[in-house]
Every structure is written in C-alpha cells, then in structure tokens.
C-alpha cells in the first residue's frame, strides 16, 4: 500500500538525476514537475571520456550542457587560459540557444563525465509544441543573460575605476 502511495505522490526531480540536475539550472527555474518532465524528454544524455572535447573553439554553437557528474574545463586552446572549472549541477553554452555564433572557448571533460545537452533545435521544438513553456524558458534565459551583463558591467566599472 505504501509503495502505491509513494508512487503516486513521488517527487520526480529528487529521484531522477536528470530531473534533479535540470531543476538546479536557473534557465529551468519556476517550472512545475510536468514541465520539467517535458524538458527532460527533450534533453540528450551523453558520456564523455577524460580529455574529450565537448565542443571546440569557433565551432558553430548549437546549445547548452548541464553537468550531471564529472568536471569540465572551459578554456581558450590558443592561450591556454582557463575561464572556468565546472562540476556537477553547473551549466555552460547557454548563449548558443539563441544564436548560431561560433563558440568563444572550448569545453573539455577533465574526468569521465555525464552531461545532458539541451539544444536550440530542442528549444524550437518545445516552442512549437508548448509555446507557454517555451516562453518561460526564454524569459529565464533572458534573466540569466541580463545577470551576466550586469556582472560584466560591474567588473568593467571596477577595472576602469
């Protein structure tokens, strides 16, 4: 009896690692369980070997990745400069959801990693299938980008002063 009860009222995002990872990403904030389920149906789970590149610098960007397990470095292969070290729950490449501009840096797995990809084609499909949910994601994406712009402005102001 308990099993049925738990099955009916189970909290998806907590049990499923993909749903849990998606739930943490600001782009998918304020989405209910059903909406998160719909997103998870569109995402692609991928495994990367140690040292395998997820995308290269200047490659045409197609979408964003969320790290479920492992470590990823974002770096400039020309200068060797490391921009970020990312771990479980982090996400990167979200700008490619909006435009087809080439990637400004490369992403490389620092250990065997499990990632989920959410791509522009998935977002377009979602916007067609469920415009309301698509709009929520676009608004969240704008918030994330706005926040990034604000941080950049602050950093620039600090540097110039």
């Amino acid at each position, binding site marked *: 009896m308990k099993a049925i009860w738990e099955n009916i009222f189970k909290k998806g995002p907590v049990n499923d690692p993909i749903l849990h990872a998606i739930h943490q990403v600001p782009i998918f904030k304020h989405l209910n369980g059903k909406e998160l389920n719909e997103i998870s149906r569109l995402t692609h789970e991928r495994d990367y070997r140690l040292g395998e590149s997820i995308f290269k610098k200047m*490659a*045409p960007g197609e979408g964003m990745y969320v790290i479920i397990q492992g470590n990823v470095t974002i770096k400039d292969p020309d200068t060797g400069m490391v921009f970020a070290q990312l771990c479980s729950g982090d996400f990167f490449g979200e700008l490619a959801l909006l435009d087809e501009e080439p990637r400004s840096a490369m992403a490389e797995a620092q250990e065997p990693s499990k990632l989920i990809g959410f791509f522009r084609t998935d977002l377009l499909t979602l916007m067609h299938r469920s415009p309301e949910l698509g709009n929520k994601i676009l608004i969240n994406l704008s918030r994330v980008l706005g926040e990034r712009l604000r941080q950049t402005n602050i950093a620039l102001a600090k540097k110039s002063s």
Partner: protein
Amino acid sequence: MNDSSLKIYRLLLFVLIGGLVWTVLPFFASVIVMLIFSFLFTTIFLPSVDSLERKIHSRSFSVILIIGGTIVAFIWFLGSFATNIGAQIKQFSAKIQQDDFALSLEGLSNKAQTILPDFLTNLIPESDEIIEKSQESLSGLFQNMLSFLSATGSLFFIAVMTLIFTIILLVEYHDFKRTLVRFIPNKYLEVGLRLIYNIEQQISKYLRGQLMAAGSVALLSIIGLFILNQFGANMTLIVFIGIIAGFANLIPMVGPFVGMIPAILVALMNNLGSDVALAHQLFGVIPSPFYILDIIFMFIVVQQIDNNLITPILVGESVGLHPMIVMIVLLIGGTLMGPLGMLFAVPTAGVIKVILDEIQFISRNSHLL
C-alpha cells in the same frame, strides 16, 4: 596506409555496400514503402497531434482522435463517392443502351471533322469505328477494374500496416528521435541534431505547403465547375472531382492533367445525347462539344492561379531546388517508381539537398569537430 589507398578502400567499401543494398532491396521494398509512407503521414499529422496533446495532455488519446477522425473522414468520402459514382454509371449504362449514344458519338465525330483542318481529319476515325472502339475500351475498363480489385487485397494489407506504423511513430516520435540521437558519436552530436532538424523542417514545410496548395486547387476547381454549371455544363460530382483534382495536384507537372480526366468523363457521361451540349461554343466562338474545352480551359486557369499565386506563397522556396532539377528528379522518380516515384521525387531531392549541404558544412568545419 597512405591517403590514396585509403580512398580506394573507401570507394570499394562504398561500392560493396551499394551492391549489397541493391541486391537486398527488392526483398524489403514493400516494407520500405510502408515505412516511407508512415514517415510522411507522421510528418503531416505530427503538428496536429502535438497541439492536441498540449490541450488534452494525453499523446495516445491525441493520436487516436486525429487518426480516427481522418479515417472516418476518408471512409465517408470514399462511401459517398462510391454511391454517387455508382448512380452515375448506372445512369450512363442506361444511356448507352439507347440509340442516342451512337448518334451523339457520330455527331461528335462529324463535328470534329468539320472543325479540324483537312490534314488532321484523316486521323479522326469513322463513327462506326469510334463506337466499336469506345465499347472495346469500356470492356477493357471493366477488366482493369477486376484486376484492380484483385490487387486491393495486398493494398489493404499495406494500408493497415502503414496505419499501424504511423500510429506507433506518432505516439513514440520524440522518444524515437532521442534514441536515434543516442547513436550519434559525441563529435558529431551538434551537427547531427542540426541535420535531423533541418530534414524534419524541409519535409514538413514541403508537405504542409503541398497539402494546402492541393486544398486550394480542390476549392478553386469546385468553384470553376460550379461556374461552368451556371453556363449549362450539367456537371455532377463537383465536390469529388474537385477533391480528386486537388490530390492529383500533389504530383507536380503531371497531376493537373490527371485531375482533368474525371471532369471530362463526367461531362461526356452527362451530356451525351444533348444537341445543345454538342453544339456548345467556348466564348461563343471556339467549338467546344460537351463543354470539353471549357473544362480544359477552367483547369488551365486554376493551374495558373495555383502556379503563380498559391504555390509560391504557400510552398515558397521551401525545397529550394532549381526548376530544371525538379523536372529531372521528376523524370527519374517517374521512371523508377511511376506516379508514386513522382510524388516522392521532389521531397526526396529536398532531403538529399539538405544532407549534401550539411556534408559541405561538416567538411568546411571538420577541424572544429
């Protein structure tokens, strides 16, 4: 291994795989045809299923509603068409028994001989010959119908299997796509996704545009036939003829002419024996016995409206192929698979174009993958 020997090995492998596919293909041809049809139907119904799913929150129920509705509409159309055409043939058979039929054909033959220039009159057979030939072709038609009925059995099997495949594909479409993506190596993931999306868009845009253009042609043909009736053309089965003309329009270039045939046949059936119809003139100048030229003229007008106004707006440059290429692929499709080949030729060429574009893109950016 150096580059040139690697190229030779690749070419040999390509030829070997090509040869194997060519040998095995006939055994799987019917299954492939079913799958292609299912995929095309899935592409047509997918947007409706997706939007209904959004409203009723059940994909399976959405598929059942959309497919069920379409089947009911199709059966209703076939049923009404069979009933009406049955009545029409019955009426026509009664007409054939009368002398009017022979007289009308004689009148038609004489009329053609007076209208046409001398060098062409030799081509028009004598009235006795026409009657004999038309009776022969009628019996031939019935024989053809019998062989058609025997083929209906296998057609029914293919239709049922296609329906089952379509339902499964529609219900599981997005999961199937994810499974397919799972097989793409990490290196080609983003490019692969783009390729799948572009192919989907290409086919979907083409099919939706074509279906809307077919609907417009059907509507315009119905209006055209209705107008002809106002001038005494005595046309029946107008809606059915319009719908057939619309569907025939799906086959580029040849379809429009196929669409005229039922209209001309119905005009002949209904007007044989009528002196007024025999003496009818298009615009009061050009002799048009049994309104045949009027019908051809009406369909040409509809085609012009479709080609110059409707199709460019609805289909646009969705496929993006040069008209010359379209003609060549139509000829190839027609030679390989007949009318079905012509129907699929343009979208197939469109898909090949997308794949070639992506291959070009990949080879240009291969250092970035």
